[in-house]
């Protein structure tokens, strides 16, 4: 066994002179994890924007995620499970995608100079992809860590307090922009890469979706800020449907 690995080290092929199938698996997994994350984020953003429909709507949705229709009052642990699941996919995706990052200054500068020369949209988009990807290493991790450790602190007031009073809003603003742009460009690449749909149409639709998600994301963030500001005096107090009537 050990010796077979040495054969691969020396010849880049295995003991039957065959190429490793790992690159194929990695390539597929990178796309698959990316696709899962795109789907996740599309719904995530929609759900958190439920605040636009009112605090009740947001509250009801939160409770639904805590499976309050099964366990009375809801069980935040499910959120933690969900967050953990996403975290695993997220880390996997990050690991796989790192393979494609510029690995040295030479590579980075070659890319930048080339992109500057050729003025080609799809090429330039990659800069967005790598910068937002890089930012999400941190921002995504912070957010997911919060969700895993404090799954109970979700709700119209709890979230708003975190955003406003805990001064998490700069983090969320950056994360929102990063995640939407990264997912959009990533989804577009997936379509191209695997030849799923026609290119121009896909590009047009993804642009529209990007604007939509950025729009609802920013407005929601604004609404949370407003609630947080108004709620600053009662920081930590949880939302109840009755109290708000």
């Amino acid at each position: 066994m050990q010796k077979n690995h040495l054969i691969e080290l020396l010849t880049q092929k295995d003991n039957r002179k065959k190429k490793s199938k790992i690159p194929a698996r990695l390539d597929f997994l990178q796309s698959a994890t990316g696709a899962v994350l795109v789907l996740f984020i599309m719904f995530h953003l929609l759900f958190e924007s439920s605040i636009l429909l009112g605090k009740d709507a947001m509250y009801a949705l939160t409770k639904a995620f805590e499976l309050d229709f099964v366990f009375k009052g809801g069980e935040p642990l499910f959120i933690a499970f969900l967050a953990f699941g996403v975290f695993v996919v997220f880390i996997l995706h990050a690991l796989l995608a790192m393979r494609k990052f510029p690995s040295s200054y030479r590579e980075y500068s070659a890319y930048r100079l080339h992109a500057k020369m050729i003025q080609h949209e799809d090429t330039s988009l990659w800069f967005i992809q790598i910068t937002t990807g890089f930012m999400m290493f941190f921002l995504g991790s912070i957010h997911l860590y919060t969700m895993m450790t404090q799954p109970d602190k979700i709700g119209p007031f709890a979230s708003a307090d975190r955003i406003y009073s805990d001064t998490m809003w700069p983090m969320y603003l950056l994360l929102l922009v990063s995640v939407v742009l990264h997912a959009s460009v990533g989804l577009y690449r997936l379509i191209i890469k695997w030849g799923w749909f026609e290119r121009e149409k896909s590009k047009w639709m993804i642009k529209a979706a990007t604007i939509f998600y950025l729009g609802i994301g920013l407005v929601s963030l604004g609404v949370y800020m407003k609630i947080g500001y108004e709620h600053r005096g009662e920081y930590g107090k949880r939302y109840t449907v009755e109290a708000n009537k």
Partner: protein
Amino acid sequence: MHRVYEDGGREIVLTIFRHNPNDEDSIPHFQDYPIIERPGMTLYIALTQIYTSMDHDVSFDFVCRAGICGSCAMVVNGKPRLACRTLTSEFSEGKITLLPLPTFQHIKDLSVDTGTFMNAMTKRVEGWIVNNSPQDISTIEKPIDPELSDEIFELDRCIECGICLASCATKVMRPNFVGAVGLNRVARFSLDPHDSRSDEEFYELIGDDDGIFGCMSFMGCQDHCPKHLPLQKQIAYMRNKMVKVR
């Protein structure tokens, strides 16, 4: 800014990258050549005029001058393209900057070595028909579905000009990347009923991050291909095939 002459020709300026890497004293620089534009002037005509009447030392490559042979690819105002098919009138400012094609060994001025890379690429992807069954060429040829033959022809139209590589950010960063030219070649042979190779065998040629899995779908290849080859479709086709190989 440009002056208008009586014959209707405006003055245009070609700015050419000048350097001879084989000459130790040569320092890379840009040189301006003002010329009078004529109706229907292509970069072939413009450069030939500069060479024969202004500067006998400027080097560039043209062969067929009709967009068929792929010799004259260069970077024209930032875009890799075939110089012989580029009309000077396309540039309303009258300023045209010419660079040699990146990602290839530079020879001199606008001339680069594409032959070495392309021959090596052909060998690397084994870009030829593989079929070990005996063939008698005095007997009637193997029938091929007419539409399939047209489809193969479509991919066979690649002229190895190198523009797909020079337009590819992946290639610019990772010199070992085989590029659209190589991946399209494999797709072409995988379609051909004369070729007996299986997907497993093609995997051995391109199944790594310098091959099919190296492509990051920047689309520079397809968007600049002077033959308008459906490169994205071919690369996607091969990628789908290659991930299925067990």
